[in-house]
């Protein structure tokens, strides 16, 4: 089955919600067409039978890299918070997360 033929405007709207993006009606139309084009190009690998090939996530055989367990200097908290859009009491400030008052 070739999946790209199934990409719908509703799929694109759903993915936009997952990615925390708001798209206009015109953008939804344009992105649906453009993403379908890219997925249609990917039909060449969709058709490949590679079930017996292991996936590669990363090009080097490095794993479990640890640094020495020694305390060292890190970036100053106030300097980090100074770059945030909003901070309060040494923490990042965001709008209310919970629907009800605590």
């Amino acid at each position, binding site marked *: 089955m070739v999946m790209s033929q199934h990409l719908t405007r509703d799929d694109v709207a759903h*993915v936009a919600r997952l990615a925390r993006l*708001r798209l206009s009606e015109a953008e939804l139309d344009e*992105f649906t067409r453009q993403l379908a084009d890219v997925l249609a190009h990917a039909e060449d*690998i*969709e058709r490949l039978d590679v079930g017996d090939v292991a*996936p*590669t996530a990363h090009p080097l055989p490095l794993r479990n890299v640890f640094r020495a367990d020694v305390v060292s200097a890190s970036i100053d908290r106030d300097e980090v918070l100074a770059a945030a*859009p909003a901070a309060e009491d040494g923490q990042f400030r965001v709008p209310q997360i919970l629907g009800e008052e605590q």
Partner: protein
Amino acid sequence: MTIGSAFDIAAQVRAGTRSARSVVDECLAAIDAREREVHAFNLVLADRARSAADVIDARVARGEDPGPLAGVPIALKDNLCTRGLPTTCSSRILEGWRPPYDASVVQRIVAAGGIVVGKTNLDEFAMGSSTENSAFGPTRNPHDLSKVPGGSSGGSAAAVAAGFAALALGSDTGGSIRQPAALCGVVGVKPTYGLVSRYGLIAFASSLDQIGPFAANVRDAALLLEVIAGHDVMDSTSIPQASPSLVSVLDDGVDGLRVGIIEELSGEGIAPDVLAQLHAAATALEKAGAVVETASVPATIYGLSAYYLIAPAEASSNLARYDGVRYGNRVDGASTTEMMEATRTAGFGAEVKRRIMLGTYALSAGYYDAYYGKAQRVRTLIIRDFARAYERFDVLLSPTSPTTAFALGAKTADPLTMYLNDVCTIPSNLAGQPAMSVPFGVGDDGMPIGVQVLAPLQGEATMFRAAAVLEAAAGAR
């Protein structure tokens, strides 16, 4: 070019026969003369560069050696963190943000005596092949202002081509150093994955991203790569080895070297004038004693499809951090979710949104195996086919880009057409292997052409030997 090679500048500054200040002043004069039309930079650090040059000169006067890049003006792609200095990724979402630390490569070039002259323009978050996706307007090709410089490191390539800096750093995820180097007529290198620390490089696709040099010649590129390569504890994917010796091998020649022209990347879809230069380059290597044959790396034909699933998938995850909470700009909303949506909708440009959407889709329930999983298996095939080719060859050869620089606006309406620019460069990123673009001749339009030299993991020394021979041959014609 007025300031000359980085190698010569450093030698003269260290010897006290030329002041770093005069070099920087020449650079800034070149920027004053042409930056308005080229727009290579998001930020020019004129005062800081002059002060840094004065410090270098004072050290030389005291009898100290400032290092192998003494007094050399260097431009940084604006996705490399610079402490206290704006680092935007050419995105509205990071406009005004000042990182609290320097990237490791920035620390290394400064420690080697290099002078940062500015932050260069790029396609937003390094997503693009023309530098037209910048929120701050496109960069233009110094050889022809109606043409693109390539991308995503178009500002760095243009800065070196225009003589605004002797060297520049870029990042290469699918060709973002090599393709603009080819289109602007300079040398561009994507090192082996893990050879150069990514600490402080703002992430696009973490299993593909690699920092590398731009230079006006092969020796300068080798010099800069020697400075920035080598293990860094701040990057867990950094190869635990010292920096390779590259400058010292440049005169070793290619006698007996086995060179393969990748047939899958040198036929259909490549412009005739580009192919003609590729074959002229192969002939030049042959004349220098190399054995040149056709090489087959069959799975490279699937590289583009695999890349445009893997890179967006990793990007969709990496760019989730731009949520208006910890850094960058925020657009207020009644709830946290609304704030995040408003922030990301206003902060990201169309191409970044497209890639986030594509990646989110490729990773979403029901499609993961068909797209992301499949692409990861194809990545294994590409690595396997390269390994087979390297049983017979020491280096491989292909065009860097299918065409010379195209006109601004020519490919912006159709993303897939733009993506096809990366067809020759993508396979090296998927395999983690080094590759570099060397200027070799010009096209029918008089614009520069680049030939790509590819090598196996950590094969930089052999790659640079071939590149040096190609450069000498190109210059002798």
